[in-house]
């Protein structure tokens, strides 16, 4: 109950940090989709490329997040504003699930369907936009969903480099040894993750090809 009272009392700040959090997660996921989906499409069509690309994305995933934030800090343009830096790091982390699911989704399209389409005289872009992407869309979205949920959690760490977001409360609470403050950051973050998960999950079912 103390937590609720604390949050109500500081509601403007809770709202502000939540919006900051959303900004970090939303923008980085959007960038990751912009890069990851085309990349996934390319490697699904060029068998030689899928291993190096997926391996690189995997390696990025294994770098501890706090270390990655630290590594990027001295980079000139990036280091100047910590939110830029946080968005770049979050984008990098979101890449793997998006690339991998796009790749898997497109590879999963029935070869007989592709052959029939090719035999009927569909061009490569007609095949992509009318057949492959519609059939892969739910798999791609489930990758986006994973990326979003990971990002919401990771973005709390961005507060360590001063990028804002709900992590501010968590770090402040840790320093103050005050659970109320920690929870004031952790609860909204958990709620955001749940909303993202169910929201995209709903979209996924809506767009699932029969």
């Amino acid at each position, binding site marked *: 109950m103390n937590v609720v009272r604390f949050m109500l009392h500081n509601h403007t700040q809770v709202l502000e940090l939540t919006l900051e959090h959303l900004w970090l997660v939303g923008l980085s996921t959007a960038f990751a989709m912009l890069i990851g989906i085309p990349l996934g499409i390319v490697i699904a069509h060029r068998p030689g490329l899928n291993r190096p690309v997926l391996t690189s994305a995997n390696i990025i995933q294994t770098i501890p997040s706090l270390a990655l934030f630290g590594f990027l800090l001295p980079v000139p343009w990036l280091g100047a504003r910590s939110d830029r830096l946080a968005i770049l790091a979050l984008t990098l982390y979101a890449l793997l699930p998006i690339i991998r699911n796009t790749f898997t989704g497109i590879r999963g399209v*029935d070869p*007989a*369907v*592709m*052959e*029939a*389409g*090719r*035999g*009927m*005289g*569909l*061009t490569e872009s*007609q095949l992509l936009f*009318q*057949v492959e992407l*519609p*059939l892969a869309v739910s798999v791609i979205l489930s990758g986006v969903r994973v990326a979003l949920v990971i990002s919401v959690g990771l973005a709390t760490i961005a507060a360590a480099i001063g990028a804002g977001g709900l992590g501010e409360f968590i770090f402040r609470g840790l320093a103050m040894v005050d659970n109320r403050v920690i929870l004031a950051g952790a609860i909204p973050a958990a709620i955001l993750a749940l909303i993202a998960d169910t929201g995209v999950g709903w979209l996924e079912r809506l767009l699932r*090809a*029969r």
Partner: protein
Amino acid sequence: MQEMATHAIEFRDVSYGIDGTQVLSNLSLQVARGETLVLLGRSGSGKTTTLKLVNRLVSPTSGEVRVNGESNEKADVIRLRRHIGYVIQEVGLFPHFTVERNIRLVPQIEGWPEERIQSRVQELMQLVGLGTELAKRYPHQLSGGQRQRVGVARALAADPEILLMDEPFGALDPLTRDELQREFLSLQQRLHKTVVFVTHDLREALRLGSRIALMEAGKLVTVLAPSEFLKSEDPWAAAYVRAFGNGTESLQKRGTT
């Protein structure tokens, strides 16, 4: 008139190999306009590859394939394919499209006016024996026989002169297969398409083919009319007849003992 005199499809000394394996060797074969040429052979004999050479899903390593007297390497591949109907065993219907959208796809991307597409779809569904109530269904809601009918309707949509069929009835139960074979014959009597039909089933070949091209290990063994096929002294043809004959003979033997 000169164009009418040429063959619909002509293979000129065509070979095809991939990764060091020779799939097809020195194939020369002509398909006359309006005939149903059956490519008969066992798995790996090169019959499907031969079919795919026509719509350039496969390009020959050497030799030339001519469609309507023109080398198909010179033709625009997309245009070429849109004017050749293609039906495969797995049907390959687009699972996210309704029956109607599956059938209308090629006319639509070819830019036909909407009314013409609609009347064409209805005409085709009737032609292949599909009730109009099926138009809004998805492929997974259909039976195997219905799916194959949609596949045929889709291949005929833009009224191609040539139809390529790769074991279209192979995955169907015997009764449905029999029904579709019968319908194929009556359809062909009306439409007179040039059909290349791949099968490993001698009975199907005898029933549907104007001529049967027997293939073995990437080579064309012989081309015979169905009536000649049963009497042929060619060892491969005779082996085929024996293999299929045995089935019925052993059944008769079982009946007598």
